[in-house]
């Protein structure tokens, strides 16, 4: 299934790789979100959200933010009952679909550099929307850093590994 219709080979590969990250337990939810998102984006065909990319002054940014926003709308419509493990990969897949669409329309040439840039923007856009601002990430990183420098904690982790606790 992975990206059979997508035209851009690199985007296809990324989509396939992202889908590998979706845990089986979230697989169905992931597909529902993607399918819902694509239906929503293509509603009204050439006058729909996806097609409106042709008016965009910054197609790459709009592909990223549009995909994330659509998932946000769907999440709201689902009363928030959308697992993180399905929602984030689905948003990424919708972003890749939008990029492929823009590529097909000749709005931008999507190569590795564009996908990398879109991914960075994806992270920078999604995390604050999930109420995980840079300061919190710094704090979380520091917490984990502290744990990893604590021999006792590391020993406990090691013991978890060995199943000794």
């Amino acid at each position: 299934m992975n990206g059979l219709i997508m035209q851009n080979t690199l985007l296809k590969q990324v989509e396939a790789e992202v889908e590998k990250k979706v845990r089986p337990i979230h697989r169905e939810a992931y597909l529902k979100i993607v399918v819902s998102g694509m239906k929503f984006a293509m509603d009204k065909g050439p006058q729909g959200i996806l097609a409106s990319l042709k008016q965009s002054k910054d197609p790459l940014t709009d592909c990223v933010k549009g995909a994330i926003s659509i998932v946000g709308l769907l999440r709201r419509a689902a009363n928030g009952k959308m697992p993180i493990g399905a929602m984030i990969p689905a948003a990424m897949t919708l972003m890749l679909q939008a990029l492929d669409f823009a590529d097909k329309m000749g709005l931008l040439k999507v190569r590795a550099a564009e996908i990398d840039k879109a991914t960075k923007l994806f992270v920078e856009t999604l995390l604050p929307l999930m109420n995980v601002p840079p300061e919190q990430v710094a704090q979380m990183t520091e917490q984990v850093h502290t744990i990893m420098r604590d021999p006792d904690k590391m020993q406990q982790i090691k013991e978890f590994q060995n199943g000794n606790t």
Partner: protein
Amino acid sequence: MPVVAVAVATWQVAAAVEVGFAALTAFQTLAVVGSVTSAVGAVTGNKDLSKAGMIMGAVGGVGNLASSQGWLGEEALANSQAYNNALFGKPVSGSVTPANSVIPTSSQIVPPGSEFLPEVTANGTGVINSVPATDVASQAATEAAKANVAGLPLDGGSGGDVVSGAVTGGDVVSGAVTGGSNVASQTATSLEATNSAAKLGATSFETQNGVEVALKDGKVVGEFNKVTGIYDSVAPISDKGFTNIVNTATADAKLALGKPMSIPGVTSPDGTGYWDSFKAFSKANPTIAYAGLTTIGTTMAGLFDQTKAAQKQQLEAQAALTAQQVANINRPIGTATPGAPRGPVSLLNSPVTGRVA
């Protein structure tokens, strides 16, 4: 682009009313975002992106585990309480105990020093060799390696390989998506767990791929969340309401028209704050042990949803058609072809004369 502005504004509304949920899932969010980020880097060949994704995954995964173990102090407790308050509408009486009774079995854990994610093939996704936990715990080794680290070049710089010894390929922490929550199966016996399972209508429980799940009529309806100590629903969108959700989202978009687009919480306009954190982390941890992280398989066999997959294919085809339609609409309108016939054109060069039998 107005539509995007509308959508983001609506997201803000949704995010604002779910503070407890958002705070609770910060580590999980980071783990999943890290996972997809590293996936992209693996395909595009951007090792910096892969490393950043790996670090995000590691921070999310280890953090999730640490939270479940109560190592993060009051924060985990507060998050659990916030979540329960949000879920049940009032504080839960008594203490909310982090699910720290996790005892992994040896079969679920990658032994220290062994290859990490050995099932990951090198082509395309790469392989990580784990670093024994002792290496990371060893301050001397860390400090010694530090001297050789140039930092994490996220913008195509030429910095050294910051996670030397930890990364040998592209994709890094596919297991991090599962994070600490899947380090081991566990027994969910708390009152909160029981209540949450009851809300889902669960009639039985079992462990699947190292995850404790609740089942109803043989179908998985909940997944045990070690951080909250309750079962999270895994059926976010019912089939019955599938179409309605799209309609509702469309209606939401219309209602939100004209609202300005802004992203709350971003203090670093260019988003570099995130990458700086990971860069600092990589500098401080030149060798990263993934002890405590393990992976559950991401085997899709038997769990593939053919119906939704077919729908997705149809929609992809529709997207291709729409792209063509839009391209046609945008095409410049007609110019005369040089040398085109003018005037009346006779269909036959030589009129037939005489009678035709």
